[in-house]
């Protein structure tokens, strides 16, 4: 590197001032102009987070939200050269720093995970779809699923409720399936029961519906009379919704 230590230090100090908003003194730098840089840099980060996490932004008191974004940007070295991926780092930072406890928002991790998954799915690279047939046995032919999906589990129903008071009384076990519509690219999501989440997970691994149904008693599912019918109805509906694409060929 050709930079002299002094120049290196000046660049570090300038960028540190932009990241933290702390006043720094550098030769030739007009203080109020550095403040403009801080404003421009930080506004970009703030806007990115607001747009990535619209539900969190709307529902978390602005004082808390602003502190979160400021602390994150000041303390975390942003790694992605693609700005749209930065919200993943924000979410990860929130988990690592136990913001759910610090800010008394127990559902925060779930909410950020849900909103990030939606953004990631919307933008992520296309995943090639294996060849499949339209006809097949629902029970015995492995199904081909839309590979552009995420199966998430939550302790709070952040995919169903947005307001704190509605969420706080509903701690439990929840599953949500998000997938990208192959034609429109829009993200769809649906709430899943534990059984349907298990089913989805197993189908994605190439297990047949019959083999998954056979496993049901081991999950202590004893009311199996309607299980097969309900399961097949769900899968046929998901075929209409472009999540189940067809049958392995």
């Amino acid at each position: 590197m050709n930079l002299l230590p002094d120049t290196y230090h000046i660049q570090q100090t300038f960028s540190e001032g932009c990241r933290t908003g702390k006043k720094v003194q550098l030769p030739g730098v007009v203080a109020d102009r550095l403040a403009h840089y801080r404003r421009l840099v930080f506004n970009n980060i703030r806007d990115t987070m607001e747009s990535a996490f619209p539900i969190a932004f709307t529902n978390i008191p602005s004082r808390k939200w602003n502190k979160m974004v400021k602390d994150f940007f000041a303390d975390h070295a942003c790694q992605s050269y693609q700005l749209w991926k930065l919200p993943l780092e924000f979410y990860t930072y929130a988990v690592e720093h136990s913001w759910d406890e610090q800010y008394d928002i127990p559902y925060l991790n779930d909410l950020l995970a849900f909103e990030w998954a939606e953004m990631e799915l919307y933008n992520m690279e296309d995943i090639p779809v294996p060849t499949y047939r339209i006809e097949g046995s629902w029970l015995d032919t492995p199904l081909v699923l839309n590979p552009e999906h995420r199966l998430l589990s939550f302790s709070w129903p952040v995919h169903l409720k947005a307001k704190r008071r509605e969420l706080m009384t509903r701690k439990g076990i929840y599953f949500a399936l998000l997938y990208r519509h192959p034609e429109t690219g829009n993200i769809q999501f649906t709430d899943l029961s534990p059984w349907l989440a298990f089913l989805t997970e197993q189908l994605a691994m190439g297990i047949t519906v019959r083999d998954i149904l056979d496993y049901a008693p081991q999950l202590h599912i004893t009311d199996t009379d309607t299980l097969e019918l309900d399961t097949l109805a769900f899968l046929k509906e998901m075929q209409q919704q472009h999540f189940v694409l067809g049958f392995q060929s």
Partner: protein
Amino acid sequence: MVGVGFRREFAEELISGEHIRPDFIELAPENWMNIGGYWKKILHRVVEKYLVLCHGLSLSIGSPDALDKEFLAYVKTFLQEYKVQLYSEHLSYSKCDNAHMYDLLPIPFRMDAVQHIVSRIQQVQDYLQRSLAMEIVSYYTPVAAEMSEIDFINEVVKRSGCQLLLDVNNIYVNAFNHQYDAKAFIQQLPLSSIAYIHMAGHEQVAPDLIIDTHGEPIIDPVYDLFEWTLAHLQPVPVLLERDFNIPEMAELQGEITRLKSICHKQWKLKDELVA
């Protein structure tokens, strides 16, 4: 040849070409690398219709940090995949202490910084096997300068062999903010190295400060400076940047038409451009 910065906000209008019809589009590779779904389809449609130039955001040529080789590999692939004819970047830094800032920070005008940047530009040019066009950025304060801005830029261009992206609005903004003569500044540049021109709007936020926002229409004095500049240049592509406060397409097309008319007037005796 006058193009427009490709924004998602008016992607469909660009594809339809009904109300806006630039000669080319410019996009930032960082915003489109490894993208899938709806926007990948849109990207392919727009690339089928228009010639593409690229203007990067994350190279951070003036950074004390090492060049990001993985990023450069993606850029190279992207430029090849979309047959990009010109790749430009900023004479600034946007990463320091291993942290991206996502904005253009001013480099200290110093000789060691020149040497540092020249070495990095050459590494990038060698790797990409193409010349880089470096944009003279707008800046709001000098930082520990030991040489003039014009000397700094000229040294970088002379030693690195890079081309220049002349953002006429940036020169106007810098001349206002730092109280120098924009025309005199442009006259001192290595004009034969200018490969690309940007035009944009700005916002005056204080009596002595203009911010380069890309969120307003181009003002008449910047058009005047543009026209004056063209008289001293060979034809090069000209880009209209509009990133915020996107107006009706008729207004943007009006700006494109005005820019084209100035190009035509000033370059009528020369060959109509070419990237």
